[in-house]
């Protein structure tokens, strides 16, 4: 039985045992449920093997929602623990594990897949394409992300969670200071998901650059597509840095190399640099698509075209370039001298300029607009002032000398939640509500949606605003408790109350999905919001080939023109359409990746080698496979089109 000792949780508690039982029961329930309803075949044919960008997008969003609740549970526990001074709800070790997994899950397994999910569903439609450039690769991307996320999530019941922070700084994350396999999980699970993300980056660059509808030159693309293009360039150039950093971390922890050690020439600072060379562009990977989503929504519901299209594009390009030259502002206090700090201070503050341009463009779009206060629009309107608050505190943090006061305090925690929540989370909630009818053929309830909006927006401020104050007052982040004499108690209690409000808001979103699925009207038009871009030009539900006839475009808002000015969007005639075949190999290969990752985490070399061979066998299979796709005949297309038209 000694062999199995390694899987034991090093620091167990009743809560962890309870989660083990809960996970076991849930998995059993899922398996029994699928078997009982005889859905295995359906699941395999329609979802596990799919290469359709719309279905892959939906799976991304589902996983992201799941992870939102995992990360949210972590957040509630942290706020509960710090609600009162000298609290004994969690001990220091558990608190470390929880803030680590909260950070990783929320950034890498919630924000990114949510964004990538929306981008999967919307981008090919917005550019008038039938799918992404490499549909099969897209499935590989999704399943690698999914398996990475699952591997990371089992850590807290098998072998122990990572506990060195989401930044996993060395020497803390080395074998000397993090003895459990937790940090191995961190290095390997994120690696697997990261490969998937890199492949997504390549796929969408090619899709956007090479598969646009005739007439849509770069400066006629919708703003969301522009934001996705720039984001994917950041992905392609930032993710390899993470790949290397995690590989070096894995080798230090598993094979005794000396990259980040304190002796034999290693440099722990190297980790911090590599991590943030990826890490800072990463925050723009999750924020630029958010800007794109807001641009679409604000212009739709202000009933005006987007103000300052060119300056929007230029500012996004500027932000993406600057994002690669600011990384050292994350560790001003590590002591790299006034010169280096000064340069990074200036580059960091410079980001405020293009971002400010964008804020003013949105305001000018709203100016004299006929604003419709739908749920997506409410999130967009709330975003502008709250995000500005986050941005301004960011400029405060950018000042290197002043940062010595704020560094590692709750002020920083408040700042990045003020940019990431109104920035990314509001955006994905807005985009999710906005594109929901296109995905599922009915609208989410506006009434419940508005309740959750107000709960989330107000509670968000109640939760995080107090942290600015306690942070300036010196409360350090990542401390599991504090004494009563510090006086942090009341404000932390306020944060806890806010966190409960946030939880209610998110629960209302789930209730909204349930309610709307049961009761919402299925009788909606293809364009329920009276929107402006091409994704609304096709049917709802979207046929698998997206557009029976590829649209022709001559302005940034061709669909709007077709509605208001009689522009002819679909000029050609129906021809047979080439579509890719489904394949189970991406799913199977990713499952093998999961086994490989698990074996690596626990240094089980024989299994790891067999899994490696399995992965290469899948790739070799792909090389020799003859897969020419299939054709949908003209008759079939016309039949589908008539059916979809008749349903209206």
């Amino acid at each position, binding site marked *: 039985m000694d062999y199995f000792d390694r899987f034991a949780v090093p620091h167990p508690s009743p809560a962890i045992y309870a989660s083990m039982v809960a996970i076991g029961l849930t998995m059993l329930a899922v398996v029994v449920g699928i078997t009982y309803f005889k859905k295995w075949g359906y699941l395999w044919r329609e979802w596990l093997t799919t290469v359709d960008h719309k279905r892959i997008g939906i799976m991304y969003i589902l996983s992201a929602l799941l992870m939102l609740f995992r990360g949210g549970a972590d957040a509630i526990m942290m706020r509960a623990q710090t609600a009162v001074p000298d609290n004994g709800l969690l001990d220091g070790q558990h608190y470390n594990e929880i803030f680590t997994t909260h950070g990783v899950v929320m950034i890498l397994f919630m924000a990114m897949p949510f964004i990538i999910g929306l981008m999967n569903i919307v981008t090919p439609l917005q550019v008038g394409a039938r799918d992404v450039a490499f549909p099969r690769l897209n499935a590989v991307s999704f399943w690698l992300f999914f398996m990475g996320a699952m591997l990371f999530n089992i850590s807290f019941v098998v072998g122990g969670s990572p506990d060195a922070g989401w930044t996993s700084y060395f020497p803390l994350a080395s074998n000397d200071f993090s003895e459990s396999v937790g940090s191995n999980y961190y290095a390997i699970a994120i690696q697997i998901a990261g490969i998937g993300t890199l492949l997504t980056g390549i796929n969408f660059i090619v899709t956007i650059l*090479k598969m646009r509808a005739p007439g849509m030159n770069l400066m006629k693309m919708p703003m969301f597509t522009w934001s996705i293009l720039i984001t994917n360039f950041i992905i392609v150039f930032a*993710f390899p840095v993470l790949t290397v950093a995690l590989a070096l971390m894995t080798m230090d922890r598993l094979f005794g190399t000396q990259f980040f050690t304190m002796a*034999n020439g290693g440099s722990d600072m*190297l980790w911090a640099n590599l991590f943030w060379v990826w890490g800072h562009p990463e925050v723009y990977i999750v924020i630029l698509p958010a800007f794109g989503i807001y641009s679409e929504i604000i212009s739709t519901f202000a009933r005006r075209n987007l103000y300052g299209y060119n300056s929007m594009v230029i500012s996004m390009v500027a932000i993406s370039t600057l994002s690669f030259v600011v990384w050292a502002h994350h560790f001003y206090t590590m002591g790299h001298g006034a010169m280096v700090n000064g340069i990074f201070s200036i580059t960091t503050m410079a980001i405020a300029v293009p971002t400010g341009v964008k804020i003013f463009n949105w305001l000018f779009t709203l100016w004299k607009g006929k604003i419709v206060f739908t749920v997506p629009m409410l999130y967009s309107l709330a975003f502008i002032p709250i995000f500005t608050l986050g941005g301004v505190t960011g400029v405060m943090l950018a000042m290197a000398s002043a940062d010595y006061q704020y560094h590692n305090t709750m002020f920083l925690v408040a700042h990045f939640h003020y940019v990431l929540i109104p920035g990314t989370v509001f955006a994905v909630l807005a985009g999710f509500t906005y594109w929901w009818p296109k995905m599922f053929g009915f609208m989410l309830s506006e009434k419940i949606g508005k309740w959750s909006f107000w709960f989330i927006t107000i509670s968000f401020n109640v939760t995080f605003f107090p942290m600015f104050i306690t942070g300036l007052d010196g409360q350090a982040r990542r401390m599991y408790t504090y004494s009563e004499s510090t006086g942090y108690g009341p404000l932390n209690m306020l944060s806890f109350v806010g966190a409960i409000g946030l939880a209610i808001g998110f629960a209302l979103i789930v209730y909204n999905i349930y309610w709307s699925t049961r009761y919402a009207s299925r009788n909606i038009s293809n364009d329920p919001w009276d929107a402006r871009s091409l994704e609304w030009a096709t049917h709802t539900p979207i046929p698998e080939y997206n557009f029976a006839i590829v649209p022709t475009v001559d302005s940034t808002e061709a669909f709007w023109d077709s509605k208001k000015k009689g522009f002819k969007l679909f000029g050609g005639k129906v021809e047979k359409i080439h579509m890719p075949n489904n394949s189970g190999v991406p799913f199977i290969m990713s499952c093998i990746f999961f086994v490989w990752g698990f074996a690596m985490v626990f240094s089980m070399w024989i299994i790891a080698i067999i899994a490696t061979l399995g992965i290469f066998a899948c790739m*070799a299979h792909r090389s020799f496979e003859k897969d020419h796709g299939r054709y949908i005949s003209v008759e079939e297309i016309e039949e589908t089109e008539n059916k979809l038209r008749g349903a209206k």
Partner: protein
Amino acid sequence: MKIDNSLPLEYSTEENRLKIFGFWIFLGAEIALFATLFATYFVLVNGTGNGPTGEHLFKVPTLMLQTIFLLTSSFTIGLGINAMRLGSKKAMLSFFVITLILGLGFLGVEIYEFVEYVHEGATIQTSAFLSSLFTLLGTHGAHVTLGLFWGTFIILQVKKRGLIPETANKAFIFSLYWHFLDVVWIFIFSFVYLKGMM
């Protein structure tokens, strides 16, 4: 599948053009990957601890042998693609086989070199300098190894299915990959070995 006969075989279909463009983007990511490994090496090059330095380890004969093998292979794969464009399957296959043999030669010398290093007490665990050296060279070597398998698969497919848009596309993309490994080697040659020996 529409075939455009005015273009070379490897570019003749839409799917082929997308794949070649996508592979260029992938090579962009590979540049970022190797750039990070080089940066790591430059940061740690003086972190030799108690282990040997580059000056002590690097030998001219193995270096020259590896360089000749790899640079020649880059030339022969170029000839292979040229033969493919001329439609000569037999010449193309011969050049691809020569390329892979040269690649195998490179790999053999690299493995011999690694074994020598270890005999001199320079392992990946000895010092940060050696960790980064072995990782940089090893990542390049792993790419070459993967290339050997990939190239073999392509030779088998061309042999069986002939020169059709699909196989020509694969062969062309493989040649891009192979040239890229050659470019990386030139940087390794200059900034690791030459700089280390001076």
